[in-house]
């Protein structure tokens, strides 16, 4: 039994596939590749991967469709690759079940960080969740609903706490406006983003050393927010 994590790369560009396969293998992953959506879905059944890296621009089927099909039977983390100019597509893929995204051209450090976050969330989903999340000077105790900064308790409003807790329990992972509004406010529409923006500003004022240069509560332009723990 091999314990190295299995990565499935679904991309139709042979050069990108070649580079990803070389680098990921070097980093100790087992890599399987598919050039088409159908092929990728079939491969995911035969060799269940621990992480899927999926290009949104496939020749045979929409990458968003591939996400939906995978989500019908597996919670495997999906990282989508897209070009910068297609925020709408990224958001649609994330809302269809993808866990994170990378914008082409991406850096390898960035890719490896995303894969690590995805694998961590996978083990957390299988086992017990961490009750306390730490990010630098910030400690969030999800069980007791207590947030401390440098050991001192930070006083948050209920909405601020819900927002922070949702972001922190998905640390490292991008969360779309829609998904945050749905979880924290209970709204299915992604229209009232202004609430989210104003609360993020307040949270940054309470938690960030320099709220205007945040290091934990990061904005993902056009997509959503990401809580970065810095590890």
């Amino acid at each position, binding site marked *: 039994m091999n314990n190295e994590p299995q990565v499935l790369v679904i991309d139709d560009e042979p050069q990108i596939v070649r580079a990803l396969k070389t680098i990921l293998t070097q980093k100790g992953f087992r890599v399987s590749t598919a050039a088409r959506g159908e092929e990728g879905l079939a491969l995911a059944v035969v060799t269940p991967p621990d992480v899927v890296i999926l290009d949104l621009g496939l020749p045979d089927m929409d990458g968003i469709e591939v996400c939906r099909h995978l989500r019908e039977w597996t919670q495997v983390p999906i990282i989508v690759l897209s070009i910068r100019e297609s925020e709408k597509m990224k958001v649609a893929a994330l809302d269809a079940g993808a866990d994170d995204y990378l914008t082409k051209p991406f850096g390898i450090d960035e890719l490896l960080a995303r894969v690590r976050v995805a694998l961590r969330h996978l083990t957390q989903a299988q086992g017990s969740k961490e009750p306390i999340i730490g990010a630098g000077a910030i400690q969030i105790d999800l069980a007791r609903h207590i947030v401390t900064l440098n050991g001192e308790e930070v006083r948050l409003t209920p909405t601020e706490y819900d927002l922070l807790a949702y972001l922190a329990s998905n640390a490292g992972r991008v969360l779309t406006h829609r998904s945050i509004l749905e979880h924290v406010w209970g709204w299915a529409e992604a229209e009232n983003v202004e609430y989210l923006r104003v609360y993020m500003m307040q949270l940054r004022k309470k938690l960030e050393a320099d709220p205007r240069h*945040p290091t934990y509560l990061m904005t993902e332009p056009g997509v959503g927010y990401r809580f970065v723990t810095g590890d």
Partner: protein
Amino acid sequence: MTSLNFRLPADLRAYRPAISTRLVSHPIFAAMLVGVVSGVLLLVRDLVTTPIIALLYLLPVLLSTTLWGLSGGITASILSFLSFDYFFIPPHYALIVHKPQDVIVLLVFLIVASVISQLVGQVKSSLASIQAREAEVIHLYDLSQSLSGLWDRSRIARMLAGKISEVFGRVQIEVRLYMPSGAIVIREPDGNPSDDMPLTILPLASTRGALGEVRVWSMREMSDAEIRLLRAMVAQGAWALERAALIESETRVTILEESDRLKSALLSSVSHELRTPLVTIRAAAESLHNGAVNRNSPAADDLLDALEEESDRLNRVVADLLNMSRLEAGALTLLRQWNVLAEIADTSIAGMRRAAQDHKLEVDVSEDLPLVPVDHVLMQQVFNNLISNSLKYAPTGTAVKVSAKLTKDGSAVLLEVSNEGPHVPAEHLEHIFDKFHRVTDAERIPGTGLGLSICRGIIEAHGGRIWAENQPGGFAFKFTLPLRWEGSAAPKLPIDSEII
């Protein structure tokens, strides 16, 4: 014969030669006139001599010709001649002539009467045709005036149909234009013509073949004169249509030439911008690969840095091109949301830190400004382009400042990206947002010449305005962003303040 200054009847019915009624009624009037004259002369027969009677009989001839034309004149001539002989040449009440001098009188009378009716009749009929021609010319002039300002083909067709209907009165008109996408059919008045009406079809002929056709359903068969006028009107319509087609193709040619010019400017700019980083990338990769540079030396790190930087630069060129082509194609859809301007500015600047390491980046965008209805990603692009433009021209070590404040009337936010770079000559200020407009020597400062025009495209799509200004000690880009979105201002947010 001075009646040429007549008013044109509205439907030209007077112009129509109503031959059938004229042929019957006019000789009757002429005969009646001759009868009246004969009656009067009978009363005074004993008081006047034969030559006087002959002269007096010329009156009904002259009068009939003048009033009712040639047919009336000839009828009057013959009847006068017969009446003269019957009533006044001895033996009375018989068409017999005994005296040779009476024969001469009768013959002269007949000749004079005929000549008079001929002459007067000719003048009359040529007057009528002159009037008809004049009416024709006036209608055609009116039509050409109405068509002269039109260049849209369906409007030309509508105008033509309207004018034909104005001239011919109760007719049903259909103008059919052959277009590549199918025929355009204009009907005047609306509705279907009935099948039993006589139909005249005339082609809208041009030098490039038939552009369409005109169908006219009239109440009765059209006269030659009417068809001639109709033909002339249709020809005018065809000319107008041909002219419209020519203008259209000329405009297309101008647009094509302009876009050709821009395309070659794009190609030369882009190939230069693409090739320059490629030169570095190729050289760096090769020298690392073949061992020309020791892989563990500091030089190798320099080359690896260059590889990354130049790939980023390539990526920016491609992004500029994509954005530009989207703006051009009108395919830029704004993902507008109520945004915190400070957050957008902060995110942009965080991404520019590395590029701005030789300058000081200063931000003065308050979090307390009202929310702005903008597309976050595109606004970030504007900030990025304006800042990187400033970084290219401002001397190293100087500050690049981003600031925002409300306009005086409070309806918009005024943003400013200023630097301590050199002034831009006044004649270039207006044009620096044009595509490929480069103020300085393109060889010295890299750039596609697209960045600022992308900014203008994005700002204008948001309903704002962008311009540039020389300032004491520097140069500034300024732009406005409206605070209202689809008529409404930013929502007031109920923020909870209770602490858990």
